[in-house]
């Protein structure tokens, strides 16, 4: 692709300089000239100028004054200041307020000026490219947001209807009327729903917004247990929450972390275990919340311990999605939390978490 030549505006009150500039550069650039700041402004208003060169010493408006006057109206063109004498204060002013890219002394050296214009134009291009890229990204991000919103509605709504129908089948005593088919439909739908929910959690966690709200751990843990213990009525919970301090943190991420860990502790149990217990203790102090979640369930193989936080890692024996602990780890990363795990196969697993208190 050949680009049209760079559009350069040169403002100088000395006619001879304008002529000399045109003579030297007309082959390389598309040149517009003006003999005063006011004339220069007219050109700017009508043409997409990319590089502006202005002489400092002009009657009425100086080069720096001109550059200052257009910082908000024409922020994009890159500016080069020409001056015949070394005026330190004008120079400082130019750099500080006029957003000047280069400063060149008169009489100019053709090669130096040419290089400056070339570099100035590169700077102009990258500024514009960056802005376009940002616009594009904002658009993509916006589309992604809407896509996620529609997944959570359009994809999940009919699935939830299916789960509702299976519930009705149960309530009407028809669950065992077709062999195990209803049971299979139920297990497939709840698995799919689980994936949708985890995907949304992962996506929301990836966004960089962190909220700071007050967290009542007792209430949060109660809600989570009510939610997940619903279909596991035979689990005993030993809850010990010591929160005398106010705790400020990211409520969505903390809920995701505790939700995933507590539901794992409930789910991964041995069917033979007569005393299924989950122990949750939380200590809140000025600096952090120290959380311990301990179960007496299946436990984790030693060689798997390092891999459980990686995406899509599943052990052969369990019906996991390979997402839960990965999301826990990601969410903890976002809020500067820490996690450690210890486990004995067949005796249970303990997770220890530290979440900083933002008070």
């Amino acid at each position, binding site marked *: 692709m050949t680009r049209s030549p760079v559009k350069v505006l040169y403002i100088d009150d000395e006619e001879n300089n304008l002529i000399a500039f045109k003579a030297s550069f007309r082959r390389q650039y598309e040149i517009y000239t003006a003999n005063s700041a006011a004339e220069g402004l007219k050109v700017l208003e009508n043409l997409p100028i990319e590089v502006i060169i202005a002489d400092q010493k002009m009657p009425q408006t100086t080069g720096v004054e001109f550059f200052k006057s257009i910082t908000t109206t024409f922020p994009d063109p890159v500016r080069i200041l020409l001056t015949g004498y070394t005026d330190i204060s004008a120079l400082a002013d130019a750099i500080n307020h006029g957003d000047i890219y280069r400063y060149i002394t008169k009489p100019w050296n053709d090669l130096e000026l040419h290089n400056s214009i070339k570099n100035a134009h590169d700077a102009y291009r990258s500024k514009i490219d960056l802005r376009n890229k940002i616009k594009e990204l904002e658009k993509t991000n916006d589309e992604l947001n809407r896509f996620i*919103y529609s997944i959570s509605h359009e994809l*999940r709504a*009919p699935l*939830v*209807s299916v789960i509702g129908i299976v*519930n*009705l089948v149960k309530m009407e005593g028809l669950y065992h009327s077709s062999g195990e088919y209803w049971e299979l439909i139920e297990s497939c739908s709840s698995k799919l729903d689980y994936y949708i*929910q985890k995907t*949304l959690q992962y996506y929301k966690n990836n966004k960089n917004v962190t909220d700071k709200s007050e967290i009542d751990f007792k209430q949060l843990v109660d809600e989570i247990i009510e939610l997940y213990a619903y279909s596991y009525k035979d689990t005993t919970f030993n809850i010990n929450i010591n929160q005398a301090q106010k705790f400020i943190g990211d409520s969505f991420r903390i809920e995701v972390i505790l939700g995933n860990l507590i539901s794992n502790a409930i789910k991964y149990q041995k069917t033979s275990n007569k005393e299924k217990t989950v122990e949750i203790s939380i200590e809140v102090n000025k600096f952090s919340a120290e959380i311990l979640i301990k179960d007496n369930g299946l436990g984790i193989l030693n060689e798997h311990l390092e891999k459980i936080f990686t995406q899509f890692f599943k052990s052969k024996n369990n019906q996991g999605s390979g997402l839960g602990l990965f999301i826990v780890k990601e969410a903890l990363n976002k809020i500067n939390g820490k996690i450690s795990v210890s486990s004995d196969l067949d005796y249970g697993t303990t997770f220890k978490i530290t979440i900083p208190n933002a008070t």
Partner: protein
Amino acid sequence: MVPLSKLLFQMPLKLKRPIRVMLIDDNTIDLKINSKIIGITKLFDDIILCQSGEEAIAYFLANEKERERLPHLILLDIQMPEMDGFEFLDNYKLLPEELKDNTRIAMLSSTLDFGDIRRAEANPYVIKLLKKPLYPAQLQAVFTSCFIIKE
């Protein structure tokens, strides 16, 4: 702080049977499923089905003179074409006060969107956001918190 209006619209109602519930949902399958669930709970004597917010508002206006036909509880879906659940609430707000005196509203949706959940919690008319699928126990809890039945 809970705003006063929220407290006002959430006070339990003293009612005599028959008690009516209105379902607003564009999805006919969900209307069917939730009618069945409501039937199983035996909490309500009559079910009014509306396939859109517009239809529900029209029902209120049409029964201005026969208030005994108005619902005591509305179960309101969020995602609906044209008038969604929140727009319904905006329109409902404009109805004459005396038509709303004996009605409580719960939202019933499969949404997981935080924005939706916050908006539902913030709306003074909404006593609870119920999650689909609806379970009889949840409906029972809403019923108990909303109504005191006079024999």
